[in-house]
């Protein structure tokens, strides 16, 4: 049976909420002003930030169409690890603190909601067939960094999925690569923490249909100081608050490829 695929003209996409309800609220307000027809979240509601349950009413009230990230899958299944895919001891140390806090402070009802999310979505944007995933189409926690994702692999993903546009997240840093024949690969970025560029804002993506697909990365400014104070009040590591305030990653950066790592402060 043919899969029924919703059609849109203009949509917003983001990933990695990371318990950052303040940035989520600001993102949703910004997207509404930009006249988008639907908002998609590519997963990982939890992580780093404080008060995980505060993001769920926002997602539900604004009809955000979400898919499941590795964090969501772990929370829903009661796993002891976030499944982020880190291999470095320092990365795993901070990931464990973040996950244990989030697991403890996410309600049973919200874990069940995360468990019901689909693993991916397909839409049409004009003539473009869009495939959304969290990490990659084949592995939920695969990192698709700009400097470490071959064009040959992206073409293979799109060919296997019979899609024209691949939208993913998971790494925390946005990028867009236009492939031949009107095809695109887009890492839509995350709104939960800044992207290691020394700026406190976060990023989401607006896609607009047309003869050529329009890809816009939108900066979102929010009350990061309040978030940083909440992180501190909850007893989370000061490194998390420092990243929110400075825009430089202080943790979970050992798996960055050399090109992305060299752009950061640490």
């Amino acid at each position: 049976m043919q899969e029924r695929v919703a059609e849109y003209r203009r949509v917003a996409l983001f990933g990695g909420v990371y318990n950052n309800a303040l940035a989520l609220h600001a993102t949703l307000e910004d997207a509404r002003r930009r006249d988008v027809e639907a908002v998609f979240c590519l997963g990982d509601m939890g992580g780093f930030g404080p008060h995980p349950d505060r993001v769920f009413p926002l997602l539900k009230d604004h009809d955000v169409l979400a898919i499941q990230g590795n964090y969501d899958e772990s929370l829903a299944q009661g796993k002891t690890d976030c499944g982020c895919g880190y291999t470095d001891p320092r990365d795993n140390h901070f990931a464990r603190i973040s996950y244990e806090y989030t697991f403890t402070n996410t309600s049973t009802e919200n874990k069940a909601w995360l468990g019901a999310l689909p693993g991916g979505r397909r839409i049409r944007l004009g003539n473009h067939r869009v495939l959304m995933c969290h990490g990659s189409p084949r592995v939920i926690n695969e990192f698709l960094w700009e400097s470490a994702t071959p064009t040959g692999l992206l073409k293979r993903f799109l060919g296997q999925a019979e899609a024209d546009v691949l939208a993913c997240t998971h790494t925390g840093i946005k990028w867009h690569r236009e492939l031949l024949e009107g095809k695109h690969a887009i890492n839509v970025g995350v709104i939960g923490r800044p992207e290691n560029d020394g700026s406190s804002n976060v990023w989401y993506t607006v896609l607009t249909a047309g003869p050529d697909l329009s890809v816009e990365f939108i900066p979102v400014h929010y009350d990061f100081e309040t978030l940083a104070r909440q992180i501190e009040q909850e007893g989370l590591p000061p490194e998390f608050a420092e990243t929110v305030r400075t825009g430089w990653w202080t943790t979970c950066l050992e798996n960055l490829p050399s090109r992305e790592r060299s752009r950061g402060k640490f």
Partner: protein
Amino acid sequence: MSSRMSLPLLINEPGAGHAPVVPFLRLSALWIQITGTWCNLECTHCINASGPNDPWLKPIAPEVARAAIQEADQLGVKEIYFTGGEPFLHGEIMGLLADALAVAPTTVLTNGTLIDDAMAYRLAALARGAAYSLEIRVSLDDTDPEKNDRVRGAGAFDKAVRAIQFLHERGLLPIVTATEITSHEHAGGRGMYERFRGFLAGLGIEKPRVKIMPVFALGRLSRDGGRRLTEDDLESFDRGTLQCSESRVVAADGVYACPILAGLPGAKLSDGGLEASFRDAPLYHPSCVTCHETGMTCKNG
């Protein structure tokens, strides 16, 4: 230093006939055993008993490496690694790195002894002009020169440290790779990972990158016997987490399942083409126990 052996790995080469297998899932990592077992060092714990004289696994002809890179590109490879032996002994290593970087992010595993400032400059220029990230993994087994050189050979510590500094000064971010071969000599102190990070920070490396590897009982540490995996060991275990489910190694005489076992007859999956090696890999060797128990991968992360 141990004495050099000919075909040392065959001492511990069990049959692969009834071993459990790992299904092939995807080609994530292409490994190129570029210099075979030809190396300018003779480390006591080398997994493939590499050395300077008469390598039992021959270097690869450049055209074989290029063909593998092109085939891997067509097959959707995600990353490419060059290993040996010592890759910088290969006369065409720079051109082959450029060929690989045109296709995918590329890593070269080196002992660092042949990286001087001029080579670091060339590598930095290559990295700047490439479409994808170039990673340099420099092996160093101990932060103490005497302990390091006892297993890696006289002078190896100073040369590797200088290579790390040259690379750093040229803007590259080398990954220092250490085995646990001497870690027991530091009992009671900081953990090995933190010790290496602290050592690199002391050299002025602002972004220290460290990868720790277990020691494998093969190559120069090969011994008879040794436990092997059974189907019972793998019950409820996700075999897709083992690197042999998504890696293939091109060596001079064929394609193998993983870099640890490259060159061993039991691990050989094809005589030539990459795609022909996309079949179940036997977990037949005692070293497979180490991967199963530690979750280790030879990849960067």
